[in-house]
């Protein structure tokens, strides 16, 4: 149909190495990018600020986490803590007088340094034990942030982000904050798609598939795992800073709690491990679907269609969220990315049945 191909046939190595091998995919990406950049012009500020902006930022966070979980295969249940380190570091650096652009990079580096310590656990254990170790780290970082007044600004305090400008554009209006977040998410997306083609990315995949087999063919598991934690934590730290400056604008420790870590893992799994489009779809799905369904049910309840109590309604987002995780794991373990891939493959060779690639 719109792909106008009966499969993917390349005539040169250059064509085979392209990021988007089929012209229709390339045009779709360009169209989506134009739509995303122009979003402040045609999306109402309410929807832009409370749905599109968080979606973009959480997609960046999911991309950071899926580098670690999807490519390198290291489970991480304390990623919100890494983001918290980035967020708090950037705020304190800017207050200290560091320019915002530099503070973003530095907060990423600080998060990478501390995040690599998390990775120290990965050198010794994996699987369930790595989950537990990162979970314990999450609680430790939470405790330090809450109980050191120099970081959190006192117990139960909210820390307002100072006013900053990025490359001489003040990060104040909704559109400016959205464009900064979108820019960072696009940078991460491009980075992620290319890292899969570098020797580093292939080393990560080798470690994921079997670490001692990777060691046999000359990939150093020690170095590669630490690099994976450092890279992913750097990306997560900057995303945390972006989240603080562009979305929350007043930071409390609860915004980076254990539940947020679980939400991130859910985004990565629902989207599909190690997939770029999966991170975007998964973040949007996990973030927006409970809100959407709760609105539907409360609308029905208000109209008298379904008899549910107020108490039930207030617990509905949790139920939908849990049911969504279970449903995806049972019915489509490869996530939304696989669903998208199935649809795309169907239309790739339509009206024929089978794609060759």
């Amino acid at each position, binding site marked *: 149909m719109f792909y106008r191909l009966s499969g993917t046939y390349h005539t040169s190595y250059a064509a085979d190495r392209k990021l988007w091998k089929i012209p229709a995919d390339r045009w779709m990406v360009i169209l989506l990018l134009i739509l995303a950049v122009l979003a402040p012009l045609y999306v109402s500020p309410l929807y832009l600020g409370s749905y599109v902006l968080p979606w973009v930022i959480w997609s960046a966070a999911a991309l950071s986490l899926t580098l670690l979980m999807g490519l390198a295969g290291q489970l991480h249940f304390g990623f919100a803590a890494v983001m918290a380190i980035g967020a708090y570091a950037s705020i304190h650096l800017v207050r200290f007088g560091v320019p915002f652009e530099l503070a973003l990079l530095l907060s990423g580096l600080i998060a990478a340094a501390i995040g690599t310590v998390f990775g120290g656990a990965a050198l010794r254990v994996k699987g369930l034990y790595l989950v537990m170790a990162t979970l314990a780290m999450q*609680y430790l970082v939470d405790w330090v942030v809450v109980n050191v007044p120099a970081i959190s600004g006192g117990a139960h305090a909210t820390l307002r982000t100072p006013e900053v400008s990025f490359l001489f554009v003040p990060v104040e209006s909704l559109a400016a904050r959205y464009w900064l977040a979108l820019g960072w998410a696009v940078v991460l997306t491009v980075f992620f798609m290319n890292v899969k083609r570098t020797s580093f990315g292939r080393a990560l995949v080798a470690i994921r598939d079997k670490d001692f087999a990777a060691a046999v063919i000359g990939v150093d598991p020690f170095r590669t795992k630490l690099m994976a934690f450092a890279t992913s934590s750097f990306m997560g730290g900057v995303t945390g800073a972006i989240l603080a400056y562009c979305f929350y604008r007043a930071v409390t420790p609860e915004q980076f709690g254990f539940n947020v870590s679980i939400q991130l893992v859910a985004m990565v799994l629902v989207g599909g491990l190690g997939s770029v489009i999966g991170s975007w779809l998964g973040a949007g799905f996990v973030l927006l679907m409970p809100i959407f369904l709760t609105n539907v049910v409360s609308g029905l309840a208000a109209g008298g269609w379904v008899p549910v109590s107020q108490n039930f309604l207030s617990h509905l987002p949790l139920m939908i969220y849990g049911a969504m995780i279970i449903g995806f794991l049972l019915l489509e373990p490869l996530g939304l990315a696989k669903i998208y891939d199935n649809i795309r493959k169907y239309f790739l060779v339509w009206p024929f049945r089978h794609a060759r690639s």
Partner: protein
Amino acid sequence: MAYFLELLISGALTGLMYSLVALGFVLIYKSAGVPNLAQGALVMTAGYSVWMVMAWGLPVWIAIPLAAAIMFGFGLIVERLLLRRMVGQPVIMVVMLTLGLEILLRGLVPGILGSTPKPIDLGIDFAPIIIGDVFINRTSLYGGIAALALVGASLLFFRTRLGTKLRAVSDDHVSSWAVGISVERAIGISWGLAGIAAVVAGALWGSSQGVDWTLSMLLFPAVAVVILGGVDSIPGVVVGGILVGVLGTVIPGYLDSFVGGSTRDVVTSLIILLTIMVRPFGIFGREDIERI
């Protein structure tokens, strides 16, 4: 000194009550190899079911066996509908599935039965027992005794014919199939037993702090107990429980006033981390963790 003794005793008893929660985790891990992160929510569901049965007007000694029967069936259903389909999947899938179950139950059960804390009256006197100048909470005392009794019963159970089957399944699934043991039924039964352990934990914790969603937060100390004692060891549950309880009570008892509270979570986290760093298989666990 009296302060220290009191912290020590109340810590040990609290720790034994943690081991009630941890026992369910170990029962499932031992036979199925599944890390059940929904054990906290299972305890919460059990607490709600005890409350529900008692709200029908039944006395305690009928209510608890009835709730145990309900939770046994619930465990069987969870295994049949969810976990059986995850056989052979990577551990992250199983971990996330149980976490999804935890989130679902935390929404569903309080959503239907009400989220205000529900009292459970087990007929335990609230006045503490006083020995010398040490006060002992009666609920914790009975909880500790119940934990020891349940762990003893589990140890005996693993010597029966059915228990031997479960041990065989925990050793090797394929070999158990080969000698004619129904692995699926064995794993289902272990989920049911975890449900029964959850009823005891839910009733005792519910009577000491009321039944609401916060019961599911017991998962975190229970995980520390399990990691410290060894994920596949039942005696480890008692030793790990007492250690986690004592350290998690004595250290905050002296430190909380200096650093501003909630050091208990920090102690629990550090126990998990240090155990994983020093001896990942725990005190009594079998040393078969894959190393690089």
